[in-house]
């Protein structure tokens, strides 16, 4: 296991992972924690990760599982701290991001994962169903429900365009 090789992987792929985690958790701090957790697992299992047909997909899978696992853990007894809203930075206009995160936050975690996999990671219904251990019908139903909810939430904002 070579740290330099792992560091190169992180440098190349952390952006993808972080953006997915950001959409899943809707918080920069939680996203960072989630990505670190997924990457730490990748570090431990590096020989297996690097031997995978698609190491990036492999780590994305670990990230999704870690997200859902954490959600389940929190929902089974722990009381989460209040979600800290994303704070505007010196980046491009954050209004749309803030609105999107607020809307995503309203979704059930599993519905959010379905939407992120389908519309951010471009996974098929079949792949999404497999990765989330749902039936394809469940993926479609959750997707429809989430889109309906997002549409209602986002049309109340000043978002350009619509969904």
């Amino acid at each position, binding site marked *: 296991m070579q740290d330099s090789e*792992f560091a190169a992987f992180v440098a190349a792929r952390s952006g993808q992972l972080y*953006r997915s985690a950001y959409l899943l958790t809707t918080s920069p701090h939680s996203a960072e924690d989630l990505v670190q957790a997924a990457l*730490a697992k990748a*570090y431990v299992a590096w*020989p297996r990760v690097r*031997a995978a047909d*698609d190491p990036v997909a492999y780590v994305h899978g670990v990230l999704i599982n870690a997200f859902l696992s954490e959600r389940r853990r929190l929902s089974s007894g722990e009381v989460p701290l209040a979600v800290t809203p994303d704070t505007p930075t010196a980046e491009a206009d954050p209004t749309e991001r803030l609105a999107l995160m607020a809307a995503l936050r309203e979704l059930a975690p599993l519905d959010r994962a379905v939407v992120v996999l389908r519309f*951010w990671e471009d*996974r098929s219904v079949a792949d999404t169903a497999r990765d989330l251990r749902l039936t394809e019908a469940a993926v479609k139903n959750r997707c429809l429900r989430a889109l309906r909810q997002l549409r209602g939430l986002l049309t109340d904002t000043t978002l350009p365009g619509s969904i």
Partner: protein
Amino acid sequence: MNLSEYDDLRDVFDRAMTDLSVPTARLCEGATRTGRRLRWRRRALVGAGGLAAAAAVGAFLVPLVGGSGDTARDPGMATEPPADPSGRPSAASSAEPPTEPFVARPGYWDMPAQEMRDRAAGLLPEGVTISSYERKNTEHAPGESDEMVGDLRATLSGPSGPGSLEVGLIQSPDVEPIFTIPADPSALDGVDLTSTDFSCNPANFWVKPTVCETLTDAQGQPYGVIIELTDAGVTTRTVKLIANEGVVRASVANSVERKWTPPTSAAEPPLTLDQLQAVATSATWTDWTPPAK
């Protein structure tokens, strides 16, 4: 759902994620540090040559002992798809089960978590009990089962307060032909064992251990290690032993966080090193055999 909905939401995601700052350096540093800690906690053996030798000698000389090292084959870095400039991940259509670095064989390392929990409960000193344990592997990688076998992750309650216990039963890969037990242990004289996970080489740790004792047999060959170290207030105690073509590892910590990070849950871990060693060396771990299929 129609196509326009699909494209519109994609556009919203794209716009929202544009110019998002990514703390790459922090992610790498944090993941590496946590990964080292996890690897140290969970892996059994590293370093094929020296460790194989250590395992083989242990197997030859100590009745309980057998086993070998992790010889994860190195197939070379898989080719990755080119990064999408937008930062959008590639479609993960190829989430095939990863290549296994060794051939799985049935053995005591297949013991279900519930069975491990029952057996561990009988080994704990008076006043220390298992208050909960993980029944499923909720963080499995793509293609991996969520069944928890060979791995007990439990929360203990004890006089000093709550804490964590992990027991890992690990198959040593490919005992034959790579790890042929030598008829004459002297054949392994001169083998460098300092890089193995059973040594107290500082390179094996992310912080300096307060206790590190390599267990050796009559011939001076290592077959186990006892370690205690403290990081950010969390004390971790570990006993690892080569045992019957595998490894038994038992660890405790005074943290009930998933990664054994602060805050601490008690002043001390729920088991002393002696108590932990008694747990790790029990034959109850290795006398289990998988049911015939």
